[in-house]
C-alpha cells in the first residue's frame, strides 16, 4: 500500500508537460524504482504522480540517417542491454546498465530516470558521458537539446525544470566511432548495490599511442565528473605502464571524494587512482591496443 494523493496517466509528452505545469508538487513516475521506494519511506513529496509509462514516443532505440544513436528515455535497462545497436556501437552503455540492481530492477528501471534522478552513483551516466550523449528535452516552450555533460548540478539535482520531460538521448557517430570503452563498478557486492566508486573510460588510439582518453568518475564528487587532468596526462602518450601511472597520478586533481560512514576519503581516492589506471587500460585494450 502506498499513500498516493494524486495520480494521472499522461497520454502524450505534451500532456505530461501540461499536467506537471498545472499540478504543483507533481512528479513523473516511469519505472518507479525510485518513486515507490520514497513512497514506502513515507515521503509525502512523492505522493503526486504523473505516469508516463504509456508514452510510446519515449520508447525505442534506433539509428538516425547520419548514424546518430537515439535511445528513448523510457527504455528500460533490459532493453538497452538487449539492443543490437547499443551492443554494436556503444557496448559500454550496455555493460554499465547491466550492473544496476538485479534482473527485476533492470526490467523496469529506465535510462531517463537514471539520469533525471541526479544520482551521483547512476550506473548509466559514466558510459553516456564518455560518449558525450545529448539530451532531447520537451517543456512548455517545445523541445531543446543540451549535452549530458553539465546536466548534473549537484547531488540529486539536474538542470531540468519541473515541467520538463526528457524525451531521448542521442549519441553522435563522432563520439562512438573508433573508441574502446569500459566501465568498472566498484561496489561492496556484485549485485543489488550502489557504486562506491564508478569509473568509465573511453580510449581512441592513434597508431601506438592514446589519441584521446575520456575518463568519468561517479561517486567521486558532488556530480559525475569528466577528468580533464587525467585525460590530458594520457593524450598522445604510448600504451605503457608509465602512462597509466601518469593517469592515476593526475586524476586526484579531477575528483573530490569525501569521507562518510560508507567510506573514508583516503580509501576512495586510493580506489579512484587504481581504477583510473586499470579501466583506462581495459578501454585501450578494447580499442585494440596492447600494453
Amino acid at each position, binding site marked *: *500500500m502506498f499513500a498516493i494523493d494524486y495520480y494521472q496517466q499522461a497520454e502524450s509528452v505534451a500532456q505530461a508537460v501540461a499536467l506537471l505545469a498545472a499540478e504543483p508538487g507533481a512528479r513523473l513516475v516511469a519505472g518507479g524504482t525510485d518513486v515507490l521506494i520514497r513512497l514506502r519511506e513515507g515521503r509525502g513529496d512523492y505522493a503526486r504522480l504523473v505516469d508516463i509509462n504509456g508514452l510510446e514516443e519515449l520508447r525505442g532505440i534506433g539509428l538516425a540517417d547520419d548514424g546518430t544513436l537515439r535511445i528513448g528515455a523510457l527504455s528500460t535497462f533490459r532493453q538497452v542491454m538487449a539492443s543490437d545497436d547499443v551492443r554494436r556501437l556503444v557496448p559500454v552503455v550496455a555493460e554499465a546498465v547491466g550492473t544496476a540492481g538485479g534482473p527485476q530492477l533492470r526490467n523496469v528501471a529506465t535510462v531517463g530516470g537514471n539520469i533525471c534522478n541526479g544520482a551521483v552513483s547512476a550506473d548509466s551516466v559514466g558510459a553516456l558521458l564518455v560518449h558525450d550523449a545529448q539530451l532531447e528535452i520537451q517543456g512548455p516552450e517545445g523541445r531543446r537539446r543540451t549535452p549530458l555533460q553539465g546536466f548534473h548540478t549537484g547531488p540529486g539535482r539536474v538542470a531540468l525544470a519541473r515541467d520538463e520531460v526528457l524525451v531521448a538521448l542521442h549519441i553522435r557517430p563522432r563520439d562512438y566511432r573508433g573508441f574502446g570503452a569500459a566501465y568498472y563498478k566498484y561496489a561492496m557486492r556484485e549485485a543489488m548495490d550502489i557504486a562506491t566508486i564508478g569509473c568509465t573510460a573511453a580510449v581512441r588510439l592513434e597508431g601506438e599511442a592514446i589519441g584521446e582518453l575520456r575518463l568519468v568518475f561517479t561517486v567521486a564528487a558532488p556530480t559525475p565528473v569528466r577528468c580533464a587532468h587525467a585525460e590530458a596526462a594520457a593524450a598522445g602518450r604510448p600504451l605503457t605502464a608509465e602512462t597509466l601511472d601518469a593517469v592515476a597520478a593526475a586524476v586526484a586533481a579531477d575528483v573530490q571524494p569525501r569521507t562518510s*560512514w*560508507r567510506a573514508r576519503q583516503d580509501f576512495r581516492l*586510493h580506489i579512484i587512482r587504481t581504477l583510473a589506471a586499470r579501466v583506462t587500460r581495459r578501454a585501450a585494450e578494447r580499442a585494440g591496443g596492447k600494453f
Partner: protein
Amino acid sequence: MAVGKSVTRKDAAAKVTGRARYTDDLPMPGMRWACYVRSPIAHGRVVRIDTTAARRLAGVEAVFTFEDVPDRPFATAGHPYALNPDHADVADRRLLTGHVRYQGDEVAVVVARDRLTAEAAAARVAVDYEELPVVVTAEAALAEGAPALHPGGNRVNTLRFEAGGKVDEVLERADAVVESRYRTPIVQHCHLENHIAYAYMDDMAHIVVVTSTQIPHIVRRIVAEALELPLSRVKVIKPYIGGGFGNKQDVILEPMVAFLTLQLGGVPVKIDLSREECFTSTRTRHATVMRGRAAAGRDGSLAALDVEIFSNTGAYASHGHAIMGASCTKSCNLYPRTAVRFAATTHYANVPAAGAMRAYGSPQVIFGIECLVEEAARAVGMDPVAFRIRNVARRGDVNPLDGHELLTCGLVECLEEGRRRIDWDARRRACRNQDGDVRRGLGVACFSYGTGTYPSCVEIAGARLILNQDGTVHLQVGATEIGQGADTAFSQMVSETLGLDCDDVHVVSSQDTDVSPFDTGAYASRQTYMVAPAVRQAAEALKGKILAHAALMTGQAAANLDLRGGRIVFAGTPEEALLSLSDLALDAYYHKQRGAQLTAEASCKTMTNPASFGCTFVDLEVDIPLCRVTIREIFNVHDSGVIINPLMAEGQVHGGLAMAIGWALYEEMLIDEQNGRIYNGNLLDYKMPTFMDIPDLGCAFVQTREPTGGYGNKSLGEPPIITPAPAIRNAVWDATGVKVDEIPMTPKVLYRYFSGAGLL
C-alpha cells in the same frame, strides 16, 4: 530403509508453488494493524508523550503508551523454563518503555483499521526525550561511571573457568606464546520472512496467537508470564515459517499482540514488522572483542589457550547471559588435550538487542581460537593442517571441562579429507613468494559443537503417531519445521522404524500448543537428535499395536509378524504379504467387536549431548590494490554422525557457508560510537552478499555412528557457519602476509590493514 536416503523434502512442492501458508497468508475478517512508535535516539527518558493527534486520525482505534502497559518485567529468551531460579533468564523487558535504550526502542503502539493509517498515526505521536549518555562498545559500557542501562549496571555476567591444566604455568614454560586481539561485528539474521504475529480471542478466556516462531510452546509460556495469565489461556499456532536462524528463538511480538487483543475485546490485531524494523528491533548476533593467547611446543603441541572475551548483548539481555557460557564450553571439545581458560563477560550497550543466532556464540569464540591456533602453528614452524591434526579431538578423548568421553569423533578424518580434496600441499607450495597485485592463499579452520542444550537446559521432545483409516500415518511433533527440513527427517525416522514408505508418513507441519506434543522447539541444532528417541518410541509402540491387531485378524502370533513396506508379513518370509496395512486399519477402526484407533505417543527426555565436529578449507585470491577477496574454492567437511538425508544435509552446509561468507567478508551493522545511530539498518546499505557474490560451495561428510542417539546422528543445522570466517582470514594471511584480526574483511578494512603493512 529411509534413513540415509535423499528423500524429497515434504514441503518442497508446497513452497515452490506458493501453496504453503505463512502467517501473513492467513487473513482474518476484521484484522487490525498495530504499529510501534520508536525512539529516534539511542538512550534517554521520555519526558512527555502526546497521543492526541494520533487518536484524532480517522481509522485509529487505540493508542497505548509505556504508561498503559503492565509494569512487570519479563524475559524473552526462548529457553525452557528453569526450575532453578538461579538459572532463570534475565527479566529486563516490558511491553513498552519510557527508558529507551537503543535507536528503535518501543515507547508506544498504535492500533488502526489498516496499515497505512497505523503508520501515519504512529508518526503523529509526539514524544519529548531527555537524552542520556550513550555507550556502544564494551570499553564504554564497562567503564567506571558509565550510564547504567538497567538497574544492576551494564555487566550482565562474567563466566570464568579453567580446564585441562594450569594455563599460567603452561604459558610460563611454553616454547612459544602468541597473543592477539580479535573483533567480530554485529550482524543480522536476514531471514526471508520478517517477524509477524497476530492474536485474537475466540471465546471469553482464551487468546490465540498465530506467529512466525521457532518455539511455539515457549512462546505460550512467555506470553502468559508477560500478561500474568494462566498458561492454559494462551494458545500459540505456528504455520509455515520463512526462516529464523535463532531470531525467532525469542519472544518479540507475541506478548504485544496478545495484550492488544485482550485490551480490544478479542478483535484480531496484527504486527508485521518491516525489514528495517527487523534490523533494529528484533535480535542480532553479538559483537565481540577477544584478547587471546596460545602456547605451543616445538613438538607441535598446542599447550594452552587463554581467552578473554567481551560480548555485547545490546539494550536487553535476551539470550546474552547464556550465549558465552554455551559457546565457551562447547569449544572445549575441540582441543581436549590442551589447557584452556576462559573469561567471558556479557554486557549491555545502547545498540539493538543481540540474541540467538545460528551457532549461538560459537562462531565468535572459534574465530578467535582458530586465528590463535594458526598463529601458534606458524610460531613453531608447523603446517596449519598438520598442527591441527596433531592437537584436535580424537575418539576416546575426555572433555577436560565436564569429563565426558567422546564416543564418536571424526575430526582428524575430516581434516585429512579436506587436505586431500583441496590438494593442500601442492597448492600451498604454489602460493610461496608471490609479489603480484593479485595473490593466492589457502586457509583452514576447525570446530567442535554440541547437539543440544543438556545439561544447561532440559531436553524434552514429544511425538504422536496416528494410523489413518487408509493405512497411512500422521506424525505430530512439537518440534518445528523452520526451513531446515526437520519434518522430512522425522518422516524418514518413522519410515525406518515402522516399515512404511516415507510418502505414507504425513507430518503435520503446523504446531498448535493446544494439540501438538510438548517440545521446546528449533534451536541448538537439537531437533534431529533430541526428537529421534520420541519418534522411535512412538513408532515402535504403534508397530506393536499394529502387529497385535494383525494377530487378532490373522490368528498368528504377533511375535512372528512384521511390518514391511506397508504390509503385514511373516518375519521369516517378508516377501509374502499376509495383510495390507490399509485393510488392517479399516478393521481396527470399524470392526464392531475388536480394535480401536491405533495411536502411539511418546515424550522423552535426553541426558546426552554429543559433540559434532568439522572444518573448512578455502582457496582464495586477494586483489591487493582493489582490497578485494575472491574465493576460488571453499568447502566444509563435517562429522555429524549418520547423515539422515544427504541432499538436505548438503543444503544445510551450503546455507551455513553462504551466511558465514557474509559474516567474514561483507556484513556488519554500522552504529555510531558516539550517539548510537544505526547507519545501515536496511538491505541496501547492509551488504548481505547476493547470489552473485557466493562462489560454488562444497561439502563432504565423515560419517560416524553416534551410539547415544536414536539414528546415529549428531548436530548439523548450525555448525556449517562456524569455521568459514577463520579459514578465510587464515587464507588472506597466507596470500598477503597480513594478519587481519577483525571481520568483516571488507575492502575498507583490508585497505587499512594493507596500507599499514606497506602493501599499498
